[in-house]
């Protein structure tokens, strides 16, 4: 029998089994789909939280205060030089603008007309950094570099806040990883237990196969294909359920339940999520079947 014919035989056997005992397989598919819905929801929530963290980080800019006495025609060039060094965008802020902002922040319009003598606020450059440059160690390195420049009086980047945000982001990632491992392990146990029901119904068939000289691989392959088929079907169902839930949230029907996910501007990367769910579904089906069929091979 050629390899193609063998594959056909295994696929035919696997499909035949799905058709012959649909109820047991439906239970297996349902438990796989539930695990994947759990994974997908956690993944969307995690992406949303990380996105929020990043957007908080985006508000923490690097503010570079310049020494007095810089020639006014050179200020733009200085701001540009800083932007290039930081790989970000620079905005030059004049002492006048800074004072206006201060007055607005303190809600003291009188400050603008007050007799302060010369405006004590210096020229400054606000640097907005790209996402990849926002982690605390890079920010600190950049601040140290900029601080060493001769025309720089001081640098402010809200170090403590950035570090705290980074720690929260890391904790979120670790929690996500831990939750994923936990869900995967639980799903493997549940799925293999459910698949055992399906395989138990065919234990006589396995026994006879073994008695007439089937290798373990020959017995196993249809079950592994079956598990993968179940995983694939379950991932499609799970994605459908997640899409429907996402739509309900977007339409506001469940806005109170899912504010985090439904927030405008947050877009789920469905293509990536579909690939992840499919991959995990196949892996769960495969591992679950592998474990489930093992105990029936001893004939």
């Amino acid at each position, binding site marked *: 029998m050629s390899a193609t014919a063998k594959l056909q035989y295994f696929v035919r056997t696997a499909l035949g089994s799905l058709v012959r005992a649909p109820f047991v397989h439906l239970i297996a598919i349902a438990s796989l789909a539930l695990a994947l819905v759990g994974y997908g929801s956690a993944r969307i929530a995690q992406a949303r939280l990380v996105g929020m963290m990043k957007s908080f980080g985006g508000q923490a800019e690097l503010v570079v205060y310049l020494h007095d006495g810089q020639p006014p025609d050179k200020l733009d060039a200085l701001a540009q030089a800083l932007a290039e060094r930081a790989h970000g965008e620079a905005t030059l802020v004049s002492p006048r603008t800074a004072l206006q902002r201060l007055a607005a922040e303190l809600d003291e319009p009188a400050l603008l007309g007050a007799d302060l003598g010369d405006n004590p606020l210096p020229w400054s450059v606000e640097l907005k950094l790209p996402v990849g440059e926002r982690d605390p160690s890079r920010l600190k390195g950049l601040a140290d570099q900029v601080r060493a420049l001769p025309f720089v009086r001081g640098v402010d980047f809200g170090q403590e806040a950035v570090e705290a945000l980074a720690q929260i982001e890391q904790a979120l990632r670790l929690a996500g990883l831990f939750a994923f491992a936990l869900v995967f392990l639980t799903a493997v146990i549940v799925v293999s237990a459910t698949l055992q029901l399906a395989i138990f119904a065919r234990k006589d068939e396995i026994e*006879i196969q073994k*008695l007439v*000289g089937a*290798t373990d691989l020959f017995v196993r392959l249809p079950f592994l294909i079956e598990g993968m088929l179940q995983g694939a079907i379950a991932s499609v169902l799970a994605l459908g359920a997640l899409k429907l839930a996402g739509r309900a949230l977007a339409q506001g029907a469940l806005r109170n339940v899912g504010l985090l996910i439904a927030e405008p501007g947050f877009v789920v990367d469905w293509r990536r999520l579909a690939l992840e769910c499919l991959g995990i579904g196949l892996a769960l089906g495969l591992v679950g079947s592998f474990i489930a069929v093992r105990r029936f091979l001893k*004939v």
Partner: protein
Amino acid sequence: MFHVTKAYPGDPPVLVDINLDIEKGEFVFLTGRSGAGKSTLLKLMFLAERPTRGQVLIAGRNIARLRDSGVPYLRRNIGVVFQDFKLLPNRTVAENVGFTLDVIGTPRAEVREKSVKMLRRVGLEHKADVSPMRLSGGEQQRVSLARALVNDPALLLADEPTGNLDPALTLEIMDLLFDVNARGTTVVVATHDATLIERYQKRTLRLEHGSMVADERGHKAARLMSQSSPLA
């Protein structure tokens, strides 16, 4: 078999120091009371069990030392028939027979052809496409026999093949077994049916409490059975 002992932890040995030599092409009855060790002895021959001590040689090869991965290839040369037939109810008769051929990678068209041919040999060609559950006990055993023989094994092991059959069907199955033997296959039949042994007068091995207590041929075998009152 050389000095074969089989024991399970915590229990007395099922087989004790069995020495046995079966020639190629022989027909052998294996007899003894229930629990004497007949089935275990057969299981050792197709490696459903491994001996605790001793050697089991088939075609000069010590199968007691065979790796697990080699067991399927050994079994492809051994046909096994059971008292309870072990047929799959959700497959047709032909599919049950073809199961053996699927396992060794026979092309699909050939599986059907060979299965039907084997069913013709056991007189069930016309039942190829029905469920085995719709057949009588004798017919089911013939399907089981066809499945065991379709791969043309060198050795056929039958564990109480007529245990569930009435006398007429029993003779039918025995005729088939002798036919198989006449074509060169070595046949070992485990049975506690004394009338069969008396009728056919073939070599008979008798087990008692896991030990081989008699190895008789022809008339002596028949006499052995008539003297052993609990079985006769």
